[in-house]
């Protein structure tokens, strides 16, 4: 695709939805292979930023370079799925289909109409889907329908779908918001491992600053659509972290 060493270069990024500013003057660089956690209270703009990074939302002002290229150009050329994949907070799986089919849906961009239809109707499977299921630990549910899966199983299915899609950059929206502490640690460890083993860039939004510091190279704090702090996990101070949350709590009215 390109030879840029940067996964992302954001300059003066601003996003507005019908006049309401969600992001405002965000500058951010992410190196390839880096793992970055976005933290901040709800309404700080984490989800919007992830959708911009995924190429699903175009910036209102400023520029976005994705692997050195323009996301909208990549989308037009059909190269976006190979560059970046997003695991949404609600997973957005098709509950009526089996885990297998939901995982294989990650490969649809590379499959033709006949192959994808046959894979849906006949008892066929892609070895890569099976491998991805094994890596996230959902193999024993491979043939089960998603509607019968627990929340954790759905999450792993969505993750396996992302692995099959095989993008260079993994974006994950609030992966632990519905998990208990022990499972949260497990999942973040898994995410981390999947990214490192394949040399992928990882950007995740998180509610918990502690988890962010423990599992990511770098933590970026967002507050009211702006970058409040940005630094290596060891450099970020507890005050900085509590600050992003406390300040907004004092002005709940302008938190969006």
């Amino acid at each position, binding site marked *: 695709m390109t030879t840029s060493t940067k996964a992302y270069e954001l300059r003066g990024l601003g996003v507005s939805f019908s006049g309401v500013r969600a992001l405002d003057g965000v500058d951010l660089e992410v190196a390839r292979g880096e793992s970055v956690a976005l933290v901040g209270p709800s309404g700080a703009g984490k989800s919007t930023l992830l959708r911009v990074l*995924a190429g*699903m939302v175009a910036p209102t002002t400023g520029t976005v370079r994705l692997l050195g290229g323009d996301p909208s150009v990549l989308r037009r050329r*059909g190269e*976006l*799925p*190979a560059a970046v*994949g*997003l695991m*949404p907070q*609600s997973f*957005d*799986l*098709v*509950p*009526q*289909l089996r885990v297998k*089919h939901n995982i294989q*849906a*990650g*490969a*649809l*961009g*590379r*499959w033709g*109409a006949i192959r*994808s*239809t046959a894979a*849906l109707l006949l008892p066929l499977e892609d070895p890569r889907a099976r491998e991805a299921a094994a890596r996230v630990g959902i193999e024993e549910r491979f043939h089960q329908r998603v*509607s*019968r899966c627990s929340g954790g199983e759905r999450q792993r299915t969505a993750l396996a*779908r992302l692995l099959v*899609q095989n993008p260079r950059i993994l974006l994950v929206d609030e992966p632990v918001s519905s998990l208990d502490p022990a499972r949260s640690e497990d999942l973040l460890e898994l995410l981390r491992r999947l990214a490192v083993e394949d040399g992928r860039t990882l950007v995740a939004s998180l509610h918990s600053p502690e988890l962010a510091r423990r599992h990511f190279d770098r933590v970026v704090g967002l507050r009211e659509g702006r970058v409040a702090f940005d630094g290596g996990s060891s450099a970020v101070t507890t005050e900085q972290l509590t600050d992003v949350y406390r300040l907004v709590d004092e002005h709940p009215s302008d938190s969006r």
Partner: protein
Amino acid sequence: MSSTSQRRRLVVTRPRPTARTALSVLLIGAFVLAFLGLDTTDDLIHQGGLQAAARLARSLLAPDLSPEFLVIVLDATLVTVSYAVAGMTVAIVIGIPGAVIVSGVLVRGRRARAVSSVLSRGTFGFLRAMHELVWALLFLAILGLTPVAGILAIGVPYGATLARVLGEHLQNAPKEVILALRSSGASRWQELVYGRVPVASGDIVAYLAYRFECAVRAAAVLSFIGLGGIGYRLNLALHDFRFDRVWPLIAALVGLIAIIDVVSARTRRTLQA
């Protein structure tokens, strides 16, 4: 709990009395005017009508349950179901591709989608306008007395209806699921088979079952154009004043519809589980 009940109460007492009252007056007024407009110079009940009603009611207690007649009932039921199944296959062959065309989900670009939607809606709207038995009369006039006329009479208008209703189901798939598929590079066709169809499968099956129920009722009256089935036997019984044979035939029809009802409810539950 209290919030939902409050919400419901708000809906009920939402003060829009003018439109509501106007509508009630309009509807009741139309009904009363229609009644007043009736020509009531003739008696409503014709000569011997009461006697016929009494005989019909009495035969309810003594229906013809002889083995020979029950075989006839069974045969008539099978004929009726078979017409319904054959008609529904034609309807599905027309309606499923039609639904995809009407929904415009395979077409890229807003203008192209609008053109395809208007054209297909116009065509199917015309086919849908006429009752299946009017179609039966037309196909009878075209093809003569052949089972094909009955099959097409059910298949053509039902196919058009399926196209419209199933097309709407395909359009209404949750946006997030479709966007998720699109972001992993899915084409329009893949979006359809991996997203829209499975998501709507419960509604699709329920609607097909409902249409099949309607098809059974329609097939039961194909005697209207001289074809066999429950209606044909019913006609014979009424002609011969064999009122005791009326009720077993009606019971067969009612039982048939009840079975379809139960099976469709169960299928729907398993699909959604």
